[in-house]
Every structure is written in C-alpha cells, then in structure tokens.
C-alpha cells in the first residue's frame, strides 16, 4: 500500500533512537525521565527484550531539532544502564508498527470493513454482532491511512504499539551508532 497521506501526527522529520539498555527494574523510568525533565514529548516508545535477554531495546520516536537531540543522546549515555544508542535515519531504516482496532459496524456493512482490511492486508481478529476487531502490521504511515479510513465507520477502541525500527540492509545502512565516549 503506497503512502500519500499527510496524517496530522506524522512528522517526516522525526528522530528514531534505538537504545539498548540493561534489562532491569527502573530503566524505563530513567530513560523517560530524562525526556520529561527537558520538556521533550516522546511521540512513541516501544520496549522489549533484545537478542541478548540481559538487554532490552527501547525504540523512541521523538520530534525535536537535531541540536537538542544531540544533548539528550549524550545525557542518555550518562545513564549507567544504557549500553548503546543508535540514531536511525528514517530514510535508511525499516519501521514497523502494529495496530488493533474494534469498529462498530452493523452486520450489513461489515463486508465493507472486511474488504478494506483485506486491501490493506490486515487481519480479522474477532467478529461480534455489531462490531469487528481487526489488526494491521506495517509501516506507521500505512497504519495512519488505515486508521483514517476506519474512522468513517466508528472506532470503539484502538491501540497502536508505537514503532520499532532497524537499519535497512540493502544499500549502505546508515546507522549512527554512538559506541564510544560512553558515560562519565
């Protein structure tokens, strides 16, 4: 599904930080606290164990200029539990997000929602008498488009995971990894 949408929440200038942390209690509070203290709004955040179970990967999407971002990356590095930070260039990374939505729809109109879901290559998760729950995994802008179209039917509940991202493999993967200059 190609993206032509200009969804109001979508800022092409966003920054993605992929932060590898020790998988311990309180780490997320330390990381999010740093953003809160400087008044930066976290646009989305996803946390889960990484390839090494002792570590977790936090994917943070933040809308700030590069200059204050540089400062916050350095401050993040100062957290003892932060092991590695990569700043992913959105043009050089693959981003994915999962969305689930329950839509109120009468039985006679259900077919339209099913058709829409199929066009987007989503899944039907549950069907009720007057509602249907669907899911879609894909790039965040594809999810934005799907969400926009579903709104016409009446969304009862909607949950998105926030994006996760990894660097692209094809061309030169431009990952800016801050490996050195760690801590203090």
């Amino acid at each position, binding site marked *: 599904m190609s993206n032509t949408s200009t969804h109001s929440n979508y800022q092409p200038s966003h920054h993605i930080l992929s932060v590898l*942390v*020790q998988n311990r*209690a*309180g780490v997320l*509070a*330390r990381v999010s*606290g740093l953003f809160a*203290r400087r008044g930066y709004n976290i646009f989305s955040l996803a946390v889960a164990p990484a390839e090494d179970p002792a570590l977790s990967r936090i994917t943070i999407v933040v809308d700030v200029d590069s200059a204050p971002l*540089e*400062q916050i990356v*350095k*401050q993040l*590095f*100062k*957290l*003892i*539990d*932060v*092991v*590695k930070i990569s700043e992913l260039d959105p043009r050089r990374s693959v981003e994915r997000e999962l969305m689930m939505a329950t839509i109120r729809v009468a039985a006679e109109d259900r077919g339209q929602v099913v058709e829409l879901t199929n066009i987007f290559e989503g899944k039907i998760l549950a069907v009720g008498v007057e509602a249907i729950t669907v899911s879609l995994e894909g790039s965040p802008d594809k999810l934005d488009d799907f969400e926009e179209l579903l709104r016409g039917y009446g969304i009862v509940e909607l949950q998105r995971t926030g994006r996760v991202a990894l660097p692209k493999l094809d061309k030169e993967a431009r990952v800016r990894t801050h490996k*050195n*200059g*760690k*801590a*203090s």
Partner: protein
Amino acid sequence: MTEQLTGAQALIRALELENVDTIFGLPGGCILPAYDPLLDSSIRHILVRHEQGAGHMAEGFAHVTGRPGVVLVTSGPAATNMVTPLCDAFMDSIPMICITGQVPTSAIGTDAFQECDTVGITRSVTKHNELIMSADDIPLVVRQAFHIATTGRPGPVLIDVPKDVLQNKMTWHWPTDEEVLASLPGYKPTTKGHPRMIKEAARLILDAKQPVLYVGGGILKARAAEVLIELAELIGTPVVTTLMARGAFPDNHPLCLGMPGMHGNATAITAMQKSDLLINLGARFDDRITGKVSTFAPGAKIIHVDIDPAEQGKVRRPDVPIVGDCRLVIEELVKTIREMLASGDTQADISDWKSRVSGWQEQFPLYYPPNEPGEALKPQFCLEKLRDLAPAGTILCSGVGQHQMWSSQYWHFNEPYTWVNSGGLGTMGFSIPAAIGAKVGCPDRTVWAVDGDGCFQMTAQELVTASVERIPIKVAVLNNSYLGMVRQWQEMFYEERYSEVYLSPELPDFVKWAEAMGCVGIRVESPEEVEPAIALANSINDRSVVIEFRVDAGEKVFPMVPAGYGNDDVLLHPNQNDRREFLR
C-alpha cells in the same frame, strides 16, 4: 569456604573493604539492622542532628580529601532530607555514597510507615541509584557504587536497602575488579584525550594572541593542579579560576587573574570577553560565568576539555572538544606543545595582551569603602582580617550569598582543596556541616566557616554535633540582619522595595546560641575588636568558636554582572565607574 553473614554485616564489611573510615549518619527504624554491626566496626560514625547535615558533611569531607563521603540514614523523611545534599553533590560533581534504609520488601508499595519512593525521588539528583532486593547483591552494589561515584565525572550514588534485606542471610563474596566492570557494560568513562584533538588544541594555543586559561572544578577532581601550573607557565597564559576552582591555580601566581563571572573581578571578566582563545579546562560555561551566552567572549575560539561528553557543546560549541580527564589531557598537551616548540614551532607573541591584562588589574582592584568611625563594620574588612590571621593551610568553607562571594573575592587561595562551597545548587546552610566534614577529613588543619546570618539559622544545630563529636571548627557569621544577596537585588533591580528580606538585628542571640551548643561565642561590633576576636578564635582548638560580626547591611558585592546581561555590561563599584573606558 562459604561464610554466612547478615545483609547488615555484609554492608558494613563492604564499606570497610572500600576503605571507609568515617560515616555521617542518623539511625531510624528501617536502617536499624545496619547500626548493630557498626558497633563492632573500625568505622567512625558521626551522629548528626539532621540528615541534611550528614549530607553536607560528607560533601565537605569529599571536597578536602578527594575520597567519597559516606552517609547512612533511614527511610522516608531521612531520605527526603537527603535530597538537597544529593542534588548539591550532583551539581558540583562531589563523590558521595548515600545508604538509605527502606521498608521491608514485602511492604514496598503499601504506603507503609516511613516509606517513600527513594530511588524515584532521587533519580534525577544522583549519578546513579539502586534499590537492593537481595542480600546477596550487597557487596557488588556497594563496589559498583564506589566505582561509579569516584570515576569519570564524580557524583553521588544512592543505595536503598530494605530492612529485611539487611536482616537476611547471604553468602559472602567480594567481587573482583573484573566482575565489577563486567557488571557495568554501559559505563566506560573516557579518560585519555584524542591525540588528534590534543594536537589541534596545541596548534590553537601556539597561534593565539589573546589566550586565557579558563579553569574549573574539573582540575581539582582530576588532581591536575600541579600540571596546570606547568602548562600555564609553559605558555605564559593568564588563568581565571571559577568559583568551583578557587585554589586550583594559586592566587599568588603572577598569571592568576582570580574569579570571573557574575561577581568576578573586572580583569578576569574582561580578559575572557576580549580573548581570542579560551582554553576551558574542566569548567562548564555555567550561566554565572558566561552571563548572556550570545554576547559571551564573542571573538574567542574554544578548546573544551571535560571528562563528561555531554558538557561538550551544551552551552558553547567548542572548536576543539577534548573528552578526557583533565590531568591526563593537560600532561599530553604539555608534551605536545614542548615537542612542537622543539621542532621549530613558535608561540605567537602575547606580551601586548598580557600588558593589557595587567593594565586592567592596576585600574580595577577589588574595592570597598573603609570603615568609618562609629559606623557599622565592613564585611570585606572582616574577611581580609580572617585571611591575614589564618594559620597556614587553613580551609575556608562558606554558605551561599554575599558572604560567599566576598570569601571567594578576598581570600587568597594559594593551594588546592582549601575552598569548600556550594557552587551549582547554591545551598544556603551548606557552610557549617561542610566545615565539620572538612575538619573530619583534615583534622590537623584549621577550618573556618564563613556564614551569613540567614545561612547560619538553617543548619547551625550541627554545631552540637561538632561539640559532642569533638570536631572543633571556627565560624564567622557576617550578621547584617538581612538575606543580604536578595536585599542587594531588591535594592538594585526592584527600586529598593525590600520584600521579606529583613531578618532581625537582635534575634537570635548568636553568642548565647553558640554557647548553648557548647561553642565559644564572641560578638564583634567595631573594627578594633576584629583582630583580637579572630586571634582568640584561632587560639582555641578544643572547642568550636562562633564569632558574630555585626556588619554593614548596606554593603553590596561588586563587580556584578546583572542576571540576563552580558559580561561587557559588568557593573563596577561606583567608585571605579569613571575609569570604565579602560575596559575597552
């Protein structure tokens, strides 16, 4: 052989193995188990009257010894009372270990008696903190805490220990250095400067025509005072020492210009403004130094040496950033410059610059009006007398406000680690407990605390601690019966509308209060009494002494760069205003 200990025994043993000889603390419910094995330990415990006092004592101790100060307190209110000293230590990069009790693990989250979210509350005022959930973890967490607090950019580390963790049995194991490092995969401070950057810095230094060494507290943390003198003399460059770096370069050295910043002297301020190269060694372009950042040292290139990468470019973007330990970087810098000079390079002629700087020094010495007969004492006069009569090696501590600025201005700090103050956080009441901690760290030295009447009333109760624990310090209270610095701002920037700054001329009675706390109390009201009182105080070494100087409430600290203004707009003492054009 596996040795079984209680968590409390393991904690105290771990502290002993970290070479802790003194703990500042106050027991309470949840930390009680740790106080029992303390009875059998070689560690000296100093029982404070308020936990905040313990924190500042630990800071004073760390300031003068370079070793982390250790605090042991209970949960809840004791932990919240530690927030101020933790933040103070965090701002001024003071190594400190704070151990707090916590309610038993089964009660955490139930709003139990004296429960608070200590790690949550202190997260943003510590370099690191940790809630220990198992007695087996105690030795490793203690070792990590000392490692983190004392390496890289030093700072406070808090360890929160639930009561049952202190009571539970554990199998003793003292982790090796390798185990400690392996347990901290995300903590690897950079200490050695990048050779290419050091070469670039050397190049800039040799080419500069108007260089200034801008020296901060990092010099003291890195134990770099000696090699700094070597560098300054090698390149013949004037040195300014920030409030945190007083003593890092000797005031009596011909290259020393003293303190820059909001209440710095006109020469130090102007030399930075006019410089073409600022060599920042362990300072952080604090707003009290730069004034309005956009007009700060507009023609200067910047070399910035700091062990904390986050300081690079935080306020002013450096031309040459060097992340590393000040001592190691300066050593390399000296070596590189020597090599360049030996291979035919030459340093630009800076003699014109230096004579310009000495011109400013001649025109703009610190000034205060002389004592007039029958009028109130000048506070600056008291400080000069304290300075001149101080025994060699005296350590000076101060609170926060006018008296702090006069202390920094009028004292001659000729050796490192003789100045203890609260620079970043500006904590009123810092002085007395910090002086007690400094005296514990350096018992053979005279320790003077200069305090204001406002500050004194915040933490004076720790003089009881000093008396009971036999830690004799000397306190000079400059009593102008005002919150003097606030009064100064209201006079200068709020049309003399004095709002809530007048304390009281007669209350409290400082002499009686001092006596009630086991100290000698002396009141000084006229200039003739100043020297005899100080001489008497200096001769008493078995008790603490408090001298109350009744001083002129109208005296203001000059020079002053008003908040929000640039350093070019420095307000000189009114007596020197007619010479202003010399600052061009």
